């Protein structure tokens, strides 16, 4: 490793809590705490887990041509970003957020990220983005180059981002800020936690209800401790974050998607806005819309091994007759599923739910089935 690993504002707290620190996306991050991955996973599914996701990139895109808060400011910044993403951003309402994909000219996915339109009227003309840690340098350079002089990229350097996830998350956070209890899923607003100004979004990447809390780096530890004080909250490491998102059918960029993958191949058709599909006008639209209408050559699918052996990234997928049809891109043990779970890409004609396949684990074929994702039902707040 040539570069020095970076630390988030919660590094000291992780160490104090017994976090086992490992390199991840250029940061020293806790892969687990004393409880271990299985218990941390179960705790998040049954109560509430606190994750440090401060390594992720937080930035604003600001309109430089239309005054913030004035008519047309949101439409300007949204139209600019819509060239690079296939989602509906112009009609995003104040205080609402959307999962979207950063596209290359060839229609490949350069990153997946969250886009939020702030609720404050005077912030119209700004969009808040949360991007993957491993991609943030790339994304910032790409956004700036593609968006040009009319858009300012404002990077929130050294900020904290905490994710509180699980069925108890709303109750825990509402102890400090009652207004979060009825926040819609995929909405965001500023609140105060113990007198500290933070920006909270009802979202996450575990398949559970939950929140992400963006704050100044100097406040991150106080907020983490405030939440960990609750008896139902435990700190959760990257290991459980991975098994949680895998069961929830959510992609990990760089594994389940990369620059060669299109949104349709990645089985993320929902990220293509209706108006955007009709109008096009985003990078790679020709390829993406062709695949949308004619089907892609390969598709990301859920895979459930029939036995107990986990099938991990790189494992070959074959038909029962022995023809190679694809590869596992993420796989492991799903603690809530109580068995191995995986996702991967297979040739489109073999992608139907219920198809029997073989996974070649350590040279031996293991029976498995193509299944619908998520393998563990998502438990989002629906009001």
């Amino acid at each position, binding site marked *: 490793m040539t570069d020095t690993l970076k630390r988030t504002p919660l590094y000291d707290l992780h160490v104090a809590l017994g976090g086992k620190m490992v390199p991840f996306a250029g940061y020293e991050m806790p*892969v*687990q705490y004393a409880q*271990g*991955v*299985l*218990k941390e*996973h179960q705790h998040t599914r049954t109560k509430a887990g606190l994750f440090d996701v401060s390594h992720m990139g937080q930035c604003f895109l600001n309109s430089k041509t239309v005054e913030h808060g004035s008519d047309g400011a949101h439409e300007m910044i949204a139209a600019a970003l819509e060239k690079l993403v296939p989602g509906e951003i112009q009609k995003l309402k104040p205080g609402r957020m959307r999962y979207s994909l950063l596209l290359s000219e060839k229609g490949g996915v350069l990153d997946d990220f969250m886009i939020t339109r702030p609720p404050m009227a005077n912030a119209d003309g700004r969009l808040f983005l949360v991007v993957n840690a491993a991609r943030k340098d790339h994304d910032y350079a790409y956004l700036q180059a593609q968006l040009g002089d009319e858009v300012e990229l404002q990077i929130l350097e050294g900020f904290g981002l905490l994710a509180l996830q699980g069925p108890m998350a709303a109750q825990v956070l509402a102890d400090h800020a009652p207004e979060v209890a009825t926040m819609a899923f995929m909405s965001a607003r500023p609140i105060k936690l113990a007198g500290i100004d933070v920006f909270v979004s009802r979202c996450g990447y575990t398949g559970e209800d939950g929140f992400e809390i963006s704050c100044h780096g100097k406040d991150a530890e106080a907020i983490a401790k405030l939440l960990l004080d609750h008896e139902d909250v435990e700190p959760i490491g990257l*290991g459980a974050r991975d*098994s949680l998102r895998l069961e929830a059918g959510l992609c990990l960029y760089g594994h389940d998607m990369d620059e060669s993958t299109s949104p349709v191949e990645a089985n993320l058709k929902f990220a293509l806005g209706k108006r955007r599909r009709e109008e096009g006008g985003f990078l790679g639209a020709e390829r993406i819309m062709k695949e949308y209408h004619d089907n892609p050559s390969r598709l990301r699918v859920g895979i459930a091994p029939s036995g*107990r*052996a*986990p099938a*991990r990234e790189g494992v070959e997928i074959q038909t029962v007759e022995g023809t190679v049809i694809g590869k596992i891109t993420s796989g*492991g*043990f799903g*603690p809530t599923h109580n068995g*191995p779970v995986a996702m991967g890409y297979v040739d489109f004609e073999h992608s139907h739910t219920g198809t029997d396949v073989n996974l070649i684990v*350590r040279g031996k074929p293991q029976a498995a089935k193509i299944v619908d994702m998520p393998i563990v039902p998502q438990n989002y707040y629906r009001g």
Partner: protein
Amino acid sequence: MTRKFTKDHEWVEQDGDGSTIGITAHAAEQLGDVVFVELPEIGAVFSQGDDMAVVESVKAASDVYAPIDGEVVAVNNDIVDEPAKVNDDADGAAWFVKLKPTDASQIDALMDEAAYKEFTQE
């Protein structure tokens, strides 16, 4: 009954004409929560260093190597049915395999407990 250790974190204990083999508690702790164990067939024959069994945790898959030459005379199916036992009692009830050694002197050449302890602290 002395227990011997390998650099791959297996332990071997000679008892009667069989050698019981497991992974060390240190290895189990490093692996994290064990979720899958694959054991060889009874009658399989291994040379020292061969892949003999597989242990998978929530984090990764690891091979368990034959610490000595020998033939499998028993396997512990309890840990196949309940892999978490490996985390609970790696040094005892969660043994993996019993081998009938081809050459018992191979065991003598392995590390003793003090040497293994020193090895894991390096």
